[in-house]
């Protein structure tokens, strides 16, 4: 039997329910395709066939017994390698965790499996999720499946690439400053970050705790909604996960968008944006007009300060979170007779360049004499950026922007200049700092080749509205503008 490559969640359910294929056969076919393409893409770091087999046996037993299937029954998924998976190696793309096997599952992983999803393996990413191109992985860069000489974006480059290449139906990534939305944009698939507090961070290996979020990649907005549905909601193991009720996202998807007010903030359309990206985004905005949405020009005056603010707060939190890698309890140890020298040498040998750079910067902005000038200042400007969003949402239902100022760039093109790399996140870090939900949805390809993503920000816990707009855009042909 020839098995199609472009599965959706609904497609998997129907095929299993109608006994056209078993979960075991489906997953075997995905592993066959991974075998054929992963050496080239370098998107999976670890495969988990034994765990997948146990799960497909459970799903196939349900089918055989004629029992109702859970919402993600038999859906092959991939998990970014910064998210803990019990007994499956979890490296964070770092040498310092080369042999780390978590003793527990992240809540998001546990919920995916409880809903019937099958975990195929762990995906490559920038080391500790620090990067915008996936070139900071200690295990080599990921290639963009749509343009192999280009980066897939980062830090969740592997999670985006496996879905775009048909090597998983959906995946989980993490977003701290754009690390879900930007690779989604670069690989031409929808990718979503829910509000801060929407999805439990329990088991997400921390980079910057006030910014980190787990969220889904899929090939259709509907599937993004289905995954978010399963992973969202209060978790007693994460005190920052909220009790705010989780609406039925799938039910909200089809609601009409006519009459909704959408902001076009001037600050997101300034210089520095690639002409091809601009043209596609403007064409995308026209689609919303045709759908009957009302476009509103607004100002978000602190947008231009977001990168500076982000790189203070994210590095400060990282320097604190990464203090735990000291060679004592897990991961790499470089032996030395002195305890302090053991710490220093372990960390010096185990961390890569970007991580060290951020630890130094983060420690500096927190250090005596500089705390007020940098860290406190950054926290104050973060308030102003969040206020820009609050002000905007008194006037509009959602905000439209490009996801990235540039299309996927060439491998190696930006690696020598960290500041230039940071500026690639200029349109995504604002929403990270403010805590609002955001999605990147495909918005055409430049010259039919390089994907562009349109970003939709919603008000806090307004995921349903964001998904509804993204779905309407996709249905109206947004991906081929």
């Amino acid at each position, binding site marked *: 039997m020839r098995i199609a490559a472009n599965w959706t969640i609904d497609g998997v359910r129907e095929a299993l329910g109608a006994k056209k294929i078993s979960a075991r056969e489906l997953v075997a076919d995905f592993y066959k395709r991974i075998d054929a393409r992963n050496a080239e893409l370098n998107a999976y770091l670890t495969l988990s066939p034994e765990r997948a087999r146990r799960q497909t046996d459970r799903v196939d037993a349900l089918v055989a017994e004629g029992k109702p299937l859970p919402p993600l029954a038999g859906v092959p998924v991939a998990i970014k390698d910064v998210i803990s998976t019990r007994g499956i190696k979890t490296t964070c793309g770092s040498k310092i965790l080369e*042999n780390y*096997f978590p*003793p*527990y599952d992240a809540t998001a992983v546990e919920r995916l499996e409880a809903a019937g999803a099958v975990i195929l393996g762990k995906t490559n990413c920038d080391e500790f999720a620090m990067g915008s191109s996936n070139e900071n992985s200690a295990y080599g860069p990921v290639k963009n499946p749509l343009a192999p000489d280009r980066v897939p974006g980062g830090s969740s480059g592997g999670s985006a690439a496996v879905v775009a290449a048909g090597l998983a139906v959906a995946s989980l990534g993490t977003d701290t400053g754009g690390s879900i939305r930007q690779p989604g944009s670069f690989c031409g698939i929808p990718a979503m970050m829910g509000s*801060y*507090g929407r999805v439990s961070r329990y088991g997400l290996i921390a980079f910057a705790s*006030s910014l980190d979020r787990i969220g889904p990649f899929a090939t259709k907005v509907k599937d993004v909604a289905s995954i978010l549905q399963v992973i969202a909601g*209060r978790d007693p193991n994460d*005190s*920052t996960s*909220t009790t705010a009720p989780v609406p039925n996202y799938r039910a909200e998807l089809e609601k009409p968008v006519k009459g909704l007010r959408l902001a076009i903030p001037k600050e997101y359309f300034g210089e520095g944006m690639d002409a091809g990206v601009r043209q596609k985004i403007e064409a995308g905005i026209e689609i919303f007009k045709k759908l009957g949405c009302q476009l509103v020009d607004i100002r978000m005056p602190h947008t231009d*300060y977001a*990168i*500076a*603010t982000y*790189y*203070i707060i994210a590095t400060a939190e990282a*320097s604190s979170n990464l*203090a735990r890698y000291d*060679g*004592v*309890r*897990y*991961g790499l*140890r470089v032996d*030395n*007779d*002195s*305890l302090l020298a*053991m710490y*220093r*040498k372990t*960390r*010096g*040998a185990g*961390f890569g*360049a970007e991580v*060290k*750079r951020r*630890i*130094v*910067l983060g*420690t*500096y902005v927190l*250090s005596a004499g500089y705390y007020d000038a*940098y860290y*406190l*200042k950054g*926290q*104050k*400007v*973060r*308030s*102003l950026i*969040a206020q820009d969003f609050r002000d905007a949402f008194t006037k509009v239902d959602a905000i439209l922007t490009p996801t990235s100022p540039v299309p996927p760039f060439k491998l190696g093109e930006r690696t020598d200049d*960290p*500041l230039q790399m*940071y500026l690639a996140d200029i349109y995504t870090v604002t929403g990270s700092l*403010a*805590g609002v939900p955001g999605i990147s949805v495909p918005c055409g390809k430049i010259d039919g080749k390089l994907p562009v993503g349109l970003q939709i920000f919603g008000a806090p816990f307004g995921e349903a509205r964001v998904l509804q707009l993204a779905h309407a855009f996709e249905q109206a042909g947004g991906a081929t503008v």
Partner: protein
Amino acid sequence: MKISREDVLRVAELAYLDLSEGELETYRAQIDEILEYIGKLNELDTANVQPMAQVLSDDQTADATLREDLIVPCAVAEDVLKHAPDPEPPYFRVPKVIER
């Protein structure tokens, strides 16, 4: 120049991070450029702005999410020690800290 070689050395010491001579100078120059860029925040008067340490409002955290302090089983010690760099169950072994 915003950050000196001595600053980087001091910070690396605080962070228990061994840096080679080459790394020291590369990071100093790169971080100097980043701090120069960050300096643009001084264009903003923030004298009357409250710092934002986290996203969620009070009604979404604190009382709403504090749980009862209950003992729950967590039998992972064996698993954790199995992958430790130098285990001596039930301990992690480290180089001698206190000289007699």
